[in-house]
Structure formats: structure tokens, C-alpha cells
């Protein structure tokens, strides 16, 4: 049995794949009734979770990585493997993905119960689960790239789930295009890495377990300049996938998808794949200080910019989307300053509380009859107490108030930035803004008077039970893994390099971040809470230019639109004209040349046999003359 568990780790992603295939076949052949598939998918995820836990239980001390490679493709000396590689970081991801997605799949049953695409939705969920789990288990960069693209496809399908809505279709295409840019960079980066580290590999190439040696060889072969460029190309993948500046614009639009998807893919798991990739590639990135600096700054700026945009959002899901972006910025920044385990710790805590926050927002939207605008909410505490309570827990967790989970992980990141004053400043400012905008959404949604129409109601148990379950890790997981209460800390379980490290508490940073968080909370309360001491309108009028900037999301979308319409479209029109006139013209010219010369030449063929004979004889004579004159 234990051998079975140990040797069949590859089954973990296969369970959801089987569920996916069964649903597709079942619905296609009509064997399965229209609203089915739920049990299959949830069971497949549950099996994956149980398998992961069983494997974890008998993994043994030290948690030494488990790796198996099969030969997937052999082309001359190139040997592309397919296999699995589990280390502590991978195990953490497996646990997060299986547990969060199982809860979300249960929740989906309530949220999507009236949707005609019920089965299709579950099929996509299973497909996503398969891709994401395979990505996490990938033993090498190529395999990861394959599943990286597959999660992109799932994301595309699910953003455009309601494809009859033009906005959803556009958002899906936008996500796909933005990710294409990043994936292109990633692919070029992977190939460059393979090229430079070619001499290193004997046997399976680009395996994560041998990335350290390969990175050394690649650095020696490429020189620091090319190596840095290669690192940045690889990093372009995570930039798009994890919605970092400047390829972030797809994530807020991705909220067009159903809310469970926003929770699962665009908050908890898929967008974290970028961070996970950076963590997997840490031996490569750490060799290029420039690349690390760029990564840190991209993360910090993303965290800051996203937080500022979130300040003005009135759509509850968009506000949460920018908050996700901001938190991903934290994680990427942590990667950039070398605090890999702090970044992954935040990834883990964030996955739980952000999934919960999104599910809460889904519950609110569901209860308010598909209303997403927070200006038409308010006072929902009375109507949906469980949702409100869990949302409050999530808000406190993300804000970073002691002792909720977000505090511990975010604090580790902020403490790690302590030696970089500018990054530290950005991180702390972002933390303050996070507290403000999260409590702003909370107060706007759940406090005050109800400003909408109709009668909001609490969601059914199938929806609030997952919320309640997610609340537990949102409160506790940070403290448990902080290393302060007898359990091993996250940094001792998941570490990069040779030694597990014990996180020392940085009391000054802790105090500062709690103070900042409470400051943000207080400001939000003064503006949107009970007393309404500071009017939001006054703010808007006083800081008009800033407000305009933030309301328009720093004009990123407008800039991209004008780049697309002013530069790209005219260029495309020019290319199209060139293609039609010059290229097609040349092709047409050659065709018509043949045509014209053909019709001229065919008059030679009179149909009279005697003419042919005469011409033949004439030709023969000429040939004979030539042979006689020049050959003899």
C-alpha cells in the first residue's frame, strides 16, 4: 500500500483528468443528465487530497525530494523527460491546490446551481485541476511549460465561460493575449537556458533537481550580460501569469468569469504559478543580481500600484482582483530579494484567505441578485451574517493584524525588505493601503444601510460551509507555521539553499506593520464605517488629479488601447496592404506571366502533324549542325 502511494504520485493529477474525460464523454454521448458531474469532480479532487496527505504522512523525516523521470521525447542527444518532482515547496502547493479547489468545487454547486453550463463548468474545473497539479508536480522546465500553457487554456475557457457576454469573451481574449506575451518570453528563456547549459546535461534535460549545476554552466557559457537577459525572459512568464506590471491588465478583467473561478484560478492557485516558477528556478535567478533586482522592483511596484488602484474601485470583485495583484507583488518582491520561503509562505496563506474573500464576494453577489457594485450594497451584515463574519476574518487576515495568517507571512516579507529602504517603504505603504481598501470594501458592503433593491439573503449551506472551513486556515495557518508556537516554521519546512532557517521575530517591523494596518483600518472606518467623519467625496474633490489617475487605473488600459489603435492597427493595416499588393502582386505576376506566355506559345501547336514533322526535322538539322560544328 505504501509503495503504491509512493510510486503512483503521478496519479494525483490523473484523477481530475479522468473526471474531465468522463464528463466530456458522458455529456457528449448523452449518458449523463444535464446537471451532473459535481460528484465526479469533487471525488477526484478529494482522492488527490487524500493521496497527497497519505504520501505526506509516510514521506519520512527530512522530506528529501522525490524525483522520477521517464523518457518522453528523444531527439539525438536531447532527452526530454516527463516525470514528477516533489519537494517541500511542491508538497505545500499540492496541499493548497487540492484543498482549496475541493472547497471551491463544493461551493460551486451552490453558486452555479441555476446555470445551464453546470456540467461544462465542472468539466473545466477538472481540466484546470489536472493542469495545475501537473504543473506543480513537473520534474523539469519543459513539462512545466506544457502545463503552464494548459492552465492558461483553462483560465481562458473559464474567463470566457459566459461566452455570450461580449465583455467576457473580450476579457478571455485579453487574458490569453497578455499571457501569450509572457509565455513567449518564457519559452525563449527556457530554450536559451537549454542552449547555454547544453554541456551540463547528460540524460534528462532541464530537471529542477539539477538546476543549480546547470545555472553555473549556463552563467559560465553565456557571460553575465546574456545570462541576465535570459533570466528576464524566463521571468516574463511569471510577469504575465502572476499579473505583474506591465502585463497585469488581464487579471481585473478576468473577473468576468464566474466567482468560483476568480477564487480558485485568479486568486488562489493559477496566478501563484508564476511565483512558484520563480521559486523553482531560484538557482538560476540568484546567479544574476540584476535580474533579482528587477524582479524585486517589479514586485514592489506591482504591489504598490495595484493597492493604489484598489483604493478607488467600486466593484467588489475588481477591488479584490487588484488586492490579489498587490499580494502577488509582495510574493514576487520576496522572490527578488531572495526571501523565497517567505514568498511561498505568503502564497500559501494568501491562497486560503483570498479564496475565502472571493467566495464571500460570490456569496454577496449571489445574495444580492448578481449585483457587484458596492455602492448598491451596504448593511448586509444583518442579512448574511456568516458571509459577513468570514469576510471580516479574511479582511483582517489580509490586512496583517496579529495573529491572523496574513500577518505572519506578510511580516516575514516586510522584515526581509528591511535592508532595502526603498522597497521597505513601498511594502509598508502598500500594507497601509491594503488595510484601508480592504476595510473600505468591508464597510461599504456589510455596514451602513442597504442601498440596493430587492431582498438580499444568506447563501445556502453548500456555499457558506466552505467559507467557514476556509476561515480556519485563514486564522490559524500563519501562526502555526510561524515557528513561534512549537510547530516547525514554514522556513524550516520549505527552504531554498542548504539550510532550513528559523525566522527570528523582528519586533520593530511587527509593531510597525500592525500599527500601519490599524491606521488603515481606522481611516477606512472614519470614511466608510459608522460615523462617516471624513467624506469620501471631499477626498475625491481635494485630490482630483490623483483620484482621476487611480480611477483610470494609472491609464494602463488606455495606454495599451492607444498603442494598439494608434501604432499597432495602422502597422497591421500597412502590413496587410503590403501583403495584398506587393507580396500577392508578385505571386499574381508570376502566374499571369506564365498564363500570357502560355497563350502566346500555344499558337505554335497548330494541330497539323506535318508542321510538327517539319519543326522536328528543322530541330534535328540544327542539332546536327551544332554537333558537327562544335563537337567534332
Amino acid at each position, binding site marked *: 500500500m505504501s509503495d503504491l502511494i509512493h510510486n503512483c504520485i503521478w496519479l494525483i493529477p490523473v484523477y481530475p483528468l479522468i473526471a474531465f474525460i468522463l464528463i466530456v464523454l458522458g455529456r457528449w454521448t448523452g449518458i449523463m443528465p444535464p446537471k451532473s458531474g459535481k460528484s465526479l469532480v469533487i471525488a477526484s479532487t478529494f482522492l488527490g487530497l487524500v493521496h497527497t496527505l497519505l504520501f505526506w504522512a509516510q514521506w519520512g523525516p527530512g522530506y528529501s525530494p522525490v524525483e522520477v523521470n521517464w523518457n518522453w521525447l528523444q531527439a539525438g542527444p536531447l532527452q526530454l523527460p516527463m516525470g514528477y518532482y516533489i519537494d517541500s515547496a511542491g508538497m505545500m502547493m499540492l496541499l493548497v491546490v487540492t484543498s482549496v479547489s475541493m472547497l471551491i468545487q463544493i461551493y460551486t454547486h451552490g453558486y452555479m446551481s441555476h446555470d445551464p453550463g453546470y456540467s461544462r463548468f465542472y468539466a473545466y474545473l477538472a481540466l484546470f485541476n489536472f493542469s495545475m497539479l501537473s504543473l506543480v508536480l513537473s520534474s523539469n522546465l519543459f513539462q512545466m511549460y506544457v502545463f503552464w500553457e494548459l492552465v492558461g487554456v483553462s483560465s481562458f475557457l473559464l474567463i470566457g465561460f459566459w461566452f455570450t457576454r461580449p465583455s467576457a469573451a473580450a476579457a478571455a481574449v485579453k487574458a490569453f493575449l497578455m499571457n501569450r506575451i509572457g509565455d513567449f518570453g518564457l519559452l525563449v528563456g527556457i530554450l536559451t537556458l537549454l542552449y547555454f547549459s547544453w554541456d551540463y546535461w547528460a540524460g534528462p534535460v532541464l530537471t529542477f533537481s539539477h538546476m543549480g549545476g546547470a545555472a553555473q554552466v549556463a552563467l559560465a557559457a553565456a557571460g553575465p550580460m546574456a545570462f541576465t537577459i535570459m533570466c528576464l525572459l524566463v521571468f516574463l512568464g511569471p510577469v504575465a501569469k502572476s499579473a505583474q506590471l506591465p502585463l497585469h491588465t488581464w487579471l481585473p478583467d478576468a473577473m468576468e468569469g464566474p466567482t468560483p473561478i476568480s477564487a480558485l484560478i485568479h486568486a488562489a492557485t493559477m496566478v501563484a504559478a508564476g511565483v512558484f516558477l520563480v521559486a523553482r528556478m531560484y538557482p538560476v535567478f540568484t546567479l544574476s543580481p540584476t535580474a533579482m533586482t528587477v524582479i524585486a522592483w517589479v514586485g514592489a511596484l506591482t504591489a504598490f500600484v495595484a493597492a493604489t488602484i484598489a483604493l478607488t474601485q467600486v466593484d467588489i470583485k475588481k477591488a479584490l482582483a487588484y488586492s490579489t495583484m498587490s499580494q502577488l507583488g509582495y510574493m514576487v518582491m520576496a522572490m527578488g530579494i531572495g526571501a523565497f520561503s517567505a514568498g511561498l509562505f505568503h502564497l500559501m496563506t494568501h491562497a486560503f484567505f483570498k479564496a475565502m474573500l472571493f467566495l464571500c464576494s460570490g456569496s454577496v453577489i449571489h445574495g444580492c441578485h448578481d449585483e457587484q457594485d458596492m455602492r448598491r450594497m451596504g448593511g448586509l451584515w444583518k442579512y448574511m451574517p456568516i458571509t459577513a463574519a468570514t469576510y471580516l476574518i479574511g479582511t483582517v487576515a489580509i490586512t496583517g493584524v496579529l495573529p491572523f495568517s496574513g500577518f505572519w507571512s506578510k511580516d516575514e516579507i516586510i522584515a526581509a525588505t528591511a535592508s532595502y529602504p526603498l522597497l521597505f517603504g513601498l511594502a509598508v505603504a502598500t500594507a497601509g493601503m491594503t488595510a484601508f481598501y480592504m476595510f473600505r470594501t468591508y464597510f461599504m458592503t456589510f455596514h451602513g444601510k442597504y442601498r440596493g433593491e430587492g431582498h438580499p439573503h444568506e447563501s445556502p449551506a453548500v456555499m457558506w460551509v466552505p467559507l467557514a472551513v476556509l476561515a480556519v486556515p485563514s486564522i490559524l495557518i500563519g501562526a502555526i507555521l510561524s515557528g513561534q508556537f512549537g510547530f516547525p516554521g514554514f522556513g524550516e519546512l520549505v527552504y531554498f539553499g542548504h539550510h532550513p532557517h528559523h525566522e527570528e521575530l523582528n519586533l520593530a517591523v511587527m509593531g510597525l506593520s500592525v500599527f500601519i494596518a490599524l491606521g488603515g483600518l481606522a481611516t477606512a472606518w472614519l470614511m466608510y464605517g459608522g460615523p462617516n467623519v471624513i467624506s469620501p467625496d471631499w477626498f475625491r474633490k481635494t485630490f482630483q488629479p490623483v483620484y482621476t489617475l487611480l480611477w483610470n487605473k494609472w491609464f494602463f488600459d488606455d495606454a495599451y488601447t492607444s498603442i494598439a489603435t494608434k501604432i499597432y492597427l495602422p502597422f497591421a493595416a500597412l502590413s496587410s496592404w503590403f501583403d495584398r499588393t506587393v507580396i500577392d502582386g508578385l505571386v499574381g505576376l508570376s502566374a499571369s506571366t506564365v498564363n500570357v506566355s502560355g497563350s502566346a506559345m*500555344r499558337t505554335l*501547336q*497548330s*494541330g*497539323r*502533324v*506535318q508542321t510538327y*514533322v*517539319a519543326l522536328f*526535322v528543322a530541330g534535328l538539322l540544327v542539332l546536327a549542325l551544332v554537333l558537327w560544328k562544335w563537337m567534332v
Partner: protein
Amino acid sequence: MFEVGLYHYLGLTVILFCIGLYGVMSSRNAIRLLMCIELMLNAVNINLVAFNNYVNMNDLSGQIFSIFILTVSAAEASVGLAILIALYRKRVSVDMERFNLLKW
């Protein structure tokens, strides 16, 4: 004493062949055209026999060859005549000028 040698035979066959070729190219009557083809074939036959005598008297391969050619050309002529009759039935003419359908 005047001796008939290879060159005389060759001269004869060249003349015969050229007359045949000229006939093929110029005659408007299809029957005459067929006859001219026969003329060319016979020129070749004479050629073969003459060369055989010149190269090796004891070996009759040239003569055998010319008999083969005679046989084949007889078959060919009969086929040609059959085609000609079919054409004549259709066109009521043996004028080569009018047989010009073999083109684009």
C-alpha cells in the same frame, strides 16, 4: 571495273529517305503520306542490309532486322490505313490540311 560499294548503298538510302521525308512533310494526300513513310522505312532496311554486308558477311542480323521491320511496318500500315478509312468516313476527305484537331 566499277565496283558497287557501301557508299553507293548509303547514297541511295539517303536519297530515298529524303524523298520519303519530303513526302511526309509536303503531301496533302494522306495515302501518299503513308506511302512516303514506307519509303523511309525501306531506306532504313537497305541501310541495314548494306551495313551487314560491309561489317560481317557471315552474320545475317541486318537482314533479319529488316524482315522484322517489314513485318512491323506492314502491321503499322494496316493500322494507319484503318485509321485513314475511319477518318475518311467521318470527313469524306483524305486531305491532310483538314486533319488539325490534335492541338490545344
